[in-house]
């Protein structure tokens, strides 16, 4: 699947390993949340980059104790209209302080890309590599944001306070 990151298509260094297969020795590897819970200590001790893929019904709090040792978390949009992963993303970024790659997978469409970025996603698996430039354009659709979210951008209310403090 083409991967969009840092505003361009990049080579995806990560391998997804299903629950039954042995882990590769060194490659960056993504495992399921179920496998992570079952083999947590071995996985964390492996000494190679580790990612976890959550379903959108999984509770992110189970990752709390290991959040600094994960390099990637992949969240799923089974349909673009199922918005649970937005809340998971914000919880991971803002409450648990996750600093690694937060990857959007599944039904990832241009018109939702900016919402995803605002919630803290920074990598997107997209179905059609040719559409990558449209995703990048979509990030710039808006310059005004009314609420603080997971991307750290200043909300309008904060800008107004800043402006009126400047005048005072």
């Amino acid at each position, binding site marked *: 699947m083409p991967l969009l990151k840092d505003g361009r298509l990049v080579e995806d260094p990560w391998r997804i390993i299903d629950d039954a297969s042995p882990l590769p020795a060194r490659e960056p590897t993504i495992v399921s949340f179920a496998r992570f819970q079952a083999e947590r200590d071995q996985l964390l001790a492996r000494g190679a980059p580790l990612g976890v893929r959550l379903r959108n019904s999984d509770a992110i709090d189970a990752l709390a104790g290991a959040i600094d040792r994960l390099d990637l978390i992949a969240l799923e949009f089974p349909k*673009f*209209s*199922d*918005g*649970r992963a*937005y*809340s*998971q993303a*914000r*919880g991971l970024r*803002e*409450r648990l302080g996750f600093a690694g790659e937060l990857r959007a997978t599944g039904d990832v*469409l241009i*018109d*939702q890309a*900016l*919402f*995803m970025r*605002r*919630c803290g996603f920074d990598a997107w698996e997209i179905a059609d590599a040719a559409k990558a430039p449209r995703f990048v354009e979509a990030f710039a*659709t*808006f*310059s*005004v*944001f*009314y*609420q*603080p*979210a997971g991307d750290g951008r200043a*909300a*309008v*209310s*904060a*800008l*107004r*306070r800043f402006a*009126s403090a400047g005048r005072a």
Partner: protein
Amino acid sequence: MYTYDEHDRTFVAERVAQFRDQVKRRLLGELTEEQFKPLRLTNGLYLQLHAYMLRVAIPYGTLSSAQMRMLAHIARRYDRGYGHFTTRQNIQFNWIKLEDAADALDDLASVEMHALQTSGNCIRNTTADQWAGVAIDEIEDPRIWCEIIRQWSSLHPEFTFLPRKFKIAVTGSPNDRAAVRVHDIGLRLRRDEKGEVGFEVIVGGGLGRTPMIGKTIREFLPKRHLLSYLEAILRAYNLAGRRDNLYKARIKILVHEIGVEEMRRRVEAEWAAIRDGALDLPPQTIDAISRHFSPPAYEPQPAVDLAVERLRLESVSFARWLKTNVAPHREPGYAIVNLSLKPEGAPPGDASAAQMEAVADLALAHSHDEIRVSHEQNLVLPHVKRADLPTLWRKLAAIDLATPNLGLVSDIIACPGLDYCALANARSIPVAQRITRRFADLKRQHDIGELKIKISGCINACGHHHVGHIGILGVDKNGEEFYQITLGGDGTETTALGRIIGPAVSADDVVDAIETLVETYLQKRRPGERFVDTYRRVGDAPFKERLYAAA
């Protein structure tokens, strides 16, 4: 009134540009209808029975004259010369072409209006008391909070694909004119024992096919925490609300299934983590928004206006209008004037472009340039000098907006029903029209007194029939329109859901049935009792007996 600053103007312009591009991609086939649907819906564009319908947001029901004039322009330019004011204080245009939609939105943006989030599974237009800022019983103006919520919820990145739509209402008065207990979240401004003003937070109310009365999740929330608390509720709902069944996806079902205690636990746990973060509302932010809602420059007025009193004695029509359509104002010498959009035989809530323009002129001349839309589908001029009442009354009568029937049997709420709506099972508007003709005699209406009839053309309950003193629900029986009648509903601070009185009646019989119920009340009532009071005292039985005895 709230006026846009540079940020707001930029935002709305960017939004229209985005939608123009989305329409273009849809027309080119780059977007499937399934992918386009939620995009057009969050811009207020529905595909109805005959055409696209554009629902324009009127935040908390407040309009300036220029905005009302623009609505008239939209009606003439893009529609068939009229619009329909809705139970969510919005306006709908029923005959819009997809190719024109972005132009209409551009026109609206020129007067600081939009159609953002008037549909879709997102946070919808926040509604408020139509008398906000002028009601005599008000603790604080709820529009300040509606505006704060409007901004926070505008394209909220986390809450644009919720399990289902999400409606918030705010009341600033103990007498609830905003129906807060039948919303996904209801906020009631109140004082705590120290006199500080904050919110009672109510969750999980709603109508639709599973009507429920909202439950208080927090007795008192200090104002500065409003947004973090709302965000905590929405997050709990977004993560756990049902997505397997469209009809069980509203927050009321989640609250019902897990219980209000568990809901409170989840919300409070989430809130504890975010309450002192970036959503905190410092006093200067609240003050800056509040300043937009400062009262206009009222002028000192005589204690009694003799011209008003004289006309009251001379004209029974004027006296009736004063009684039902004019409400006391917090400023001495001023009045709140309610304009009835329910003249005899008209579709409830409809206004012609000419009427909209006339109301805009009247607001400029008599109401400090301000108009309100009520959830009961009427209009309000909120700042009228009592001395102007005779003149204003004559001008309103000339444009058929002075019917003295506010709160009476012909002041009916009705959804668009099968005349327009793709979801309806039966027509609503013709039933409302027939009832207003049956009860056309205003003397009789005034004798009957307060009686709220609400009609929905299907179980989605857009006409709020569950909270009508008399509720009428259109159902389909083997291809024929039938109407199920409920009694005893109440959308105010004494919220109650109406109870089904018996088998549904046919379209031919429904108006007779309503008349029978009214006659029964008139026989049974004690002095001072409204229809709903008598119903509460005597119960179903006498109404049932009279209604079904003949059958």
